[in-house]
């Protein structure tokens, strides 16, 4: 029957009427099989039902029990629909579906009526693909981390356990990883969490499926918005658009979190390993790492006996804890773990503060060891009739050629690092300066400088520096390196040679490394001044051309 239009119907909005006709009288229908019964259902009703069943499925999870529950619910819906058909309904429409949803209840209504078995906060989080990382308290050896990982990646936990144990013996880093996971991954306490833990496998299929579901929600929201009165009024629509936007953003956010989380995790883990390697380089676990040099400067800061280095512990805490937090943040982002563990926060905060106190205290103590500086000076005037003084290096220092054991990679200002019998030693590099004497005598001034807790201790430290030249007639042999004692207190040594005007010196090639700021009239660099004769004139050292002699260093 064609609906007649009475004149009183005018004026009406033709556009609106058209839409109405489209919606009311010309709808696509689908044929569905719901729990073994066939129904004709309107397109929009189908989508509503589909979304509802999806929500229900996600609410209950996806293990065997959940499947059964959802099947029962579907059977019941099918029964309600069959009743409608019996009463003369031909096509299931949206109002029938809405009615069914009211009868069966939305997931929220169901969880309100369910017994308190879900998470204690009553909140439920749904994860992309339905599976979340939990620790499994029912299958655990320590914290249930391995079995949780097993569930997450669908691997037998035994394999993961073996993997962890092997890694532990291979370097110990897995122990750290286990601890971190133990702390950060929540335990699957409630049924809902256990369902999520064993939930739908995460793969491309399930991810694309869940994205489709999310998109379905978005579409639905959008449709609701279009048919809602707010659309017509064009007011208060911001909320609806907002909801749709929120869902789109949620999908993007999920992807973004993983993209950000992975570098967090990697950077944090690498930095933590490097930190530990640097701090505990002397221990063998990290010494094997190729990119970390096995030199621990910390060892040289402490007086012998205080082997347990508090500074190391302090540094480990103060730098390590932010790195651990970075790793935790990464893991949380990647696995979308939502925990708000206040205890953990205060533990980390407390440890961090303890670290700072340790640093302040032990740093203060150690700094105190550097508070005073003293120089011990030794003047030695020599009288020689010789016109030319020969200067060369003192080799070997009797027993040990220090330069041969120097590590070329570790070069500090006044010292180098050498390796002697598997132990690091510090090798001091002296300075050799040459100046014009004010009188007619050659003067050798040795300066040994050191820091210490007080002046006497600084003096003792300075006197302990083994830096002594040898002289025989006109030949002076100067050590180009000296071994520093076990405790580094910024020891330095230098030798100043004052040459009277008129005398000539020969600088042997072996002195290249210790010549420091030697002024000369040709403005030659220190390292270029060797293998040459220089005559002291009132204006400074003047280059003299003479045959290069064969200088042999003095030996003790």
């Amino acid at each position: 029957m064609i609906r007649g239009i009475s004149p009183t119907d005018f004026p009406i909005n033709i556009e609106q009427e058209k839409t109405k006709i489209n919606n009311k009288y010309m709808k696509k229908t689908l044929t569905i099989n719901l729990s073994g019964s066939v129904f004709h259902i309107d397109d929009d009703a189908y989508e509503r039902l589909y979304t509802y069943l999806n929500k229900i499925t996600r609410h209950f999870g996806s293990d065997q029990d959940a499947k059964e529950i959802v099947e029962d619910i579907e059977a019941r819906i099918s029964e309600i629909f069959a009743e409608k058909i019996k009463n003369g309904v031909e096509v299931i429409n949206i109002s029938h579906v809405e009615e069914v949803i009211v009868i069966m209840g939305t997931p929220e209504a169901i969880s309100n009526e369910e017994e308190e078995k879900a998470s204690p906060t009553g909140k439920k989080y749904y994860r992309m693909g339905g599976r979340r990382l939990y620790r499994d308290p029912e299958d655990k050896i320590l914290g249930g981390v391995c079995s949780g990982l097993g569930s997450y990646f669908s691997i037998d936990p035994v394999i993961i356990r073996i993997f962890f144990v092997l890694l532990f013996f291979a370097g110990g880093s897995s122990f750290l990883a286990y601890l971190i996971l133990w702390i950060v991954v929540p335990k699957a306490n409630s049924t809902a969490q256990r369902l999520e833990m064993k939930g739908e496998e995460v793969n491309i299929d399930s991810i694309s499926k869940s994205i489709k579901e999310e998109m379905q929600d978005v579409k639905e929201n959008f449709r609701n918005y279009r048919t809602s009165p707010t659309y017509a009024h064009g007011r208060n629509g911001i909320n609806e658009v907002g909801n749709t936007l929120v869902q789109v953003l949620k999908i993007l956010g999920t992807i973004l979190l993983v993209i950000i989380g992975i570098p967090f995790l990697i950077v944090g883990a690498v930095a933590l390993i490097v930190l530990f390697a640097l701090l505990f380089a002397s221990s063998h676990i990290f010494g094997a790492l190729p990119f970390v040099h096995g030199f621990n400067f910390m060892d040289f800061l402490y007086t012998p006996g205080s082997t347990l280095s508090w500074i190391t512990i302090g540094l480990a805490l103060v730098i390590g804890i932010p790195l651990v937090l970075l790793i935790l943040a990464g893991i949380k982002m990647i696995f979308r773990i939502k925990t708000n563990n206040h205890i953990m926060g205060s533990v980390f905060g407390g440890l961090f503060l303890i670290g700072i106190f340790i640093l302040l205290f032990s740093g203060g103590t150690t700094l105190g060891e550097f508070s005073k500086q003293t120089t011990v000076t030794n003047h030695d005037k020599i009288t020689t009739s010789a016109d030319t003084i020969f200067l060369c290096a003192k080799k070997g220092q009797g027993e040990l050629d220090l330069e041969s054991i120097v590590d070329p990679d570790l070069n500090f200002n006044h010292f180098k690092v050498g390796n002697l019998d598997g132990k690091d030693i510090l090798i001091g590099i002296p300075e050799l300066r040459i100046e014009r004497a004010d009188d007619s005598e050659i003067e050798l001034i040795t300066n040994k400088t050191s820091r210490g807790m007080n002046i006497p201790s600084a003096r003792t430290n300075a006197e302990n520096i083994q830096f002594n030249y040898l002289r025989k007639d006109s030949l002076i042999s100067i050590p180009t390196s000296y071994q520093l004692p076990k405790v580094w207190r910024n020891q330095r040594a230098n030798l100043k040679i004052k040459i009277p005007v008129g005398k000539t010196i020969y600088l042997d090639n072996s002195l290249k490394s210790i010549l420091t700021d030697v002024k000369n009239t040709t403005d030659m660099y220190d390292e270029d001044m060797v293998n040459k004769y220089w005559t002291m004139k009132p204006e400074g050292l003047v280059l003299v051309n003479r045959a290069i002699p064969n200088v042999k260093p003095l030996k003790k």
Partner: protein
Amino acid sequence: MNIDNSKAQMRKGILEYCILLILSKKPLYASDIIGELKDAQMIVVEGTLYPLLTRLKNDGYLSYRWEESLQGPPRKYYELSEAGEKFLAELEISWSELVIAIQQLRTRV
């Protein structure tokens, strides 16, 4: 404190007992159980019942069999198992105790 919430909590606590009680008379299928529970105003939405039935079944208190129906697909008929009957007996005692306890509190001067 929310009054509706408190009421809901009370009902939740005895929902299991109610289901067992309903099934103790004769085997029923889900819709029948729902009907009785709704009449007694024990549940509002039907979706609540199914997880409970599944859990009771998995715990061994209920069993079910499929029965052909005149209209539509076969139905699941639930009935009490032996363990279920023992469980129900326990709950009966517990309920009686509760009633007595409440009665005492109410009549206390």
